[in-house]
């Protein structure tokens, strides 16, 4: 008869901080990389130049509609066959970032379209250069608008980062897979890992909500 016994997997807990750190590192780097990648895509989408618009749309639709797991297999197995051998870490990071960039580009586009054109006109009439308008006038306002959807985006990347375990990156999901198959305490390791993911998600949401409050306070 099965008995729930958390103590049975207690010996595996010393590997937990390390695996949580890997999950957070993967998430953090992917969020930054995807945001950097999303900027040119969003800009191209809004450029009004037909070939650029089509390319940007194609990128977004393509990467939003392919499961991230399949994307990982393309990068890890597919590219290896084509001669490009990515390590598990880089393949996972690439899959996460290229997938997240599609969502992030849409968030940025919505952010840009929320800025009234009067802001640009006013800045231009003050004699600001194009890059100054972009950096000092538009970007700060875009940043403020996109904070709430960006929080959901970060949580999505955090959840998606669990794909790394499939190819064997030692993240939190991998801790669960390894602990489960080593101790046969599948339910326990699932519950521990699931609880940590829930806490991490709530943590990310809380941090971004705090940033949002500060950004709003700056408006008054």
């Amino acid at each position, binding site marked *: 008869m099965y008995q729930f016994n958390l103590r049975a997997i207690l010996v595996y807990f010393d590997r937990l901080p390390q695996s949580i750190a890997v999950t957070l590192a993967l998430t953090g780097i992917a969020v930054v990389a995807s945001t950097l990648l999303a900027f040119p895509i969003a800009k191209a989408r809004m450029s009004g130049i037909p070939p650029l618009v089509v390319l940007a749309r194609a990128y977004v639709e393509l990467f939003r509609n392919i499961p991230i797991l399949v994307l990982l297999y393309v990068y890890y197995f597919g590219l290896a066959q084509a001669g490009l051998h990515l390590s598990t870490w880089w393949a996972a990071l690439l899959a996460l970032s290229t997938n997240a960039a599609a969502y992030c580009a849409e968030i940025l586009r919505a952010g840009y379209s929320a800025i009234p054109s009067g802001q640009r006109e006013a800045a231009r009439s003050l004699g600001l250069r194009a890059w100054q308008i972009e950096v000092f006038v538009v970007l700060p306002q875009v940043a403020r608008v996109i904070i709430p959807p960006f929080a959901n985006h970060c949580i999505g990347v955090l*959840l998606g980062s669990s794909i790394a375990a499939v190819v064997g990156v030692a993240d939190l999901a991998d801790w669960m897979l390894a602990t489960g198959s080593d101790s046969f305490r*599948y339910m326990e390791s*699932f519950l521990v890992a*699931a609880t940590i993911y829930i806490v991490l998600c709530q943590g990310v949401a809380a941090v971004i909500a705090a940033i949002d409050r500060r950004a709003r306070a700056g408006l008054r």
Partner: protein
Amino acid sequence: MFATGNVWDYWPVFVNGLLLTIELSLIALVVGFVLGLFIGLARTYGPRPVRALCTAFTESFRSIPPLLLFFGGYYGLSYATGLTMSPFQASVIAMILEASAFMSEVVRAAFRSVDRGQWDAARAVGLGFWAALWTVIGPQAIRVLIPPTIGVYVAVLKDSSFASIVGLVELTRAGLLVRETVGDSLTVFLLLSAIYFVINYSISSGALALERRFRFVH
């Protein structure tokens, strides 16, 4: 590499995998829709403890990566209950949990989007809570509900690829199997990407068309 044959020779494997993927995600969506409707309504109109419970359910299952749900559903439940779960049963359970959490959010947002005045008016003409919900609020909420529901379906269909982890031969696992036989990883996974893309893109384009069709004109 010991290549035996061509990827395209194995097209029936892909077709069967695809059918299973669609079957799985449809079951998850339909059951998830019903459960999500109850949970979402309880979260919006229920008494405080019920509301807290439903919020905890939604927040939890939205914050657990699908990989973990399939793992927990298959190995976890099998070991914990002593029942031998088939990969299909485990996948259905995992996906229903995920879909109902997503749907309850959609339902809550849809019912909240109905103007408060509609409630006041319905109550003022003497309708009870359920009558008002069924005849006045519900029909308005359902219009708002349809487009994001299709979004949920696409999300669920994509996440069904994680069922390959527990050995269910849906589309992704079918691809992995063909890869093992043929060895042509690049073709197999590009083909998988293309199939998923075509299906999901057609569904979401359909959603967009529906959204235009159902848009409220005041």
